């Protein structure tokens, strides 16, 4: 009695290779033989062939690099927020933002950072250490008249003080920068994320 059990459908992986012309001679005979007796595989083969034909008929599109998923806008996002991009580029960035979560997140972060900085109370120019010099001069000028008026008295007082104190040395005045410099030098060997290691007073010197 003839064996009516169909041969096992083991040509699935070979059908694609068959369409690609990549089969070895023995494999080709096997595929042809199986396709002659297995309706399921014939159906699958036709579907595969039709799918490939459809793909081949599709027009080849030249996709701009900027529309590829791997591309992200960087500096353009800042210009986009400022409305400084040319119209075409503005449209391109806008289109990209609709599809790219990463760029959209970055745009939101950038916008939030700008908003935060704008909303800071009383943002002052970085003149911190100048402040202690300018008022010095202002106060000195303002008091000049008074200083002249009391000068004679001061001289007299100084004479008396010298007489009383003998050889006492004047108190030394040390500028803040000397200490800051030493701190910064020591801090520079520390690992960390300190963005500017307290160089403000040095950097702000006129």
């Amino acid at each position, binding site marked *: 009695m003839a064996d009516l059990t169909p041969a096992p459908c083991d040509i*699935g*992986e*070979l*059908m*694609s*290779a068959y369409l690609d012309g990549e089969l070895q001679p023995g494999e080709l005979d096997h595929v042809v033989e199986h396709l002659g007796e297995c309706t399921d595989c014939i159906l699958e083969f036709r579907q*595969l062939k039709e799918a490939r034909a459809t793909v081949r008929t599709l027009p080849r599109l030249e996709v701009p690099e900027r529309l590829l998923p791997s591309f*992200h806008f960087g*500096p353009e*996002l800042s210009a986009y927020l400022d409305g400084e991009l040319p119209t075409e580029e503005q449209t391109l960035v806008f289109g990209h933002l609709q599809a790219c979560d*990463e760029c959209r997140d*970055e745009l939101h*972060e950038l916008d939030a*950072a700008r908003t*935060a*900085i704008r909303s*800071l*109370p*009383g*943002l*002052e120019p*970085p003149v*911190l250490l100048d402040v*202690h010099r300018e*008022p010095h001069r202002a106060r000195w000028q303002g008091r000049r008249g008074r200083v002249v008026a009391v000068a004679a008295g001061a001289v007299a007082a100084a004479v008396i003080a010298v007489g009383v104190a003998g050889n006492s040395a004047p*108190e*030394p*005045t*040390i*500028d*803040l*920068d*000397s*200490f*800051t*410099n*030493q*701190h*910064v*030098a*020591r*801090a*520079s*060997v*520390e*690992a*960390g*994320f*300190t*963005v*500017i*290691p*307290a*160089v*403000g*007073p*040095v*950097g*702000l*010197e006129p």
Partner: protein
Amino acid sequence: MRALRRLIVTAALTTLAVVAAAVPVIAAEGLDDYLREAEEAEYGGRRIVVTVWDGESRAEVFTVIHTGDTMTVNGGESRVGYGKLDGALGGGVVIPEWSSSVLSDRYAMDQPEAVRRLGRDAVRLVVREGDVKRATIVLDAETSAPLATEVYDGAGDLFRYSTMLDFDANPAPYLAGAETDEEYEVMLPSAASSLPANASGYRRADTYSGPNDSVHAFYTDGLFYFSIFELPEGTRLGGLDDAVVVEVDGNEYRRLVAPDGIWVYWEAKTAYLLVGDLPPDHLEQVLEELPQPKGKGNFISRLWRGIFG
């Protein structure tokens, strides 16, 4: 099946690519690794630093070049790194010896998150101290440079923010004119310090001789750091005319705030100057553990606390 296998292989490669994009390039595991990588980053650019302290803000834009362990600020106004500072206007200082710091175990880091910043792949680190978010650091994945940082006070409010305004992984374009030629003042280690070995989680790492016979104690918890100078009796400190008087635990201190640091001056048995970048709540806790300012009010408050707790 071969088609299916190809599809699977393609899918696997795509998955690998996605995973590779999600995993930070920086070869670091713990927070201290990331901080060390950041310290050795190479980059250039402009960075804005904003500090908000008691409702008042200070801001400054710095041009920075970071090459290895050296940072040059504003085209050579100052150059700091590896234990020395070239201050084009403030002189040179070099410290020949120091002890290595250890990151305090009070800090913990969330799982690093891959993000994008300035159009670049980056890693966002969130540092927590107990229940408080203490800092957020965004490191560039390629260079480990800190692209943005946020530091929070004990109430979880932002008090210092910095971000690169423009960034270049190649610092060369920023190097022009950055050369300086300085003579260095060498600060020698000193064993004498009356200050505590620990102050509110900060360890006194080193002690040096300081300007005008002062004693310099350097404290760190591995994330923030500060110096305290014990000033000889009679020292007059210039530059504090516009310091504001603040009260901490009933004691009065004079305080200056800059975008990148803080200066606190007070007088106890001798005078003290603190310089550093620590958050406001840390500062208050540290001051409470250091010699207290002298004064009538302070004496009364100490007496009150002594009697009634």
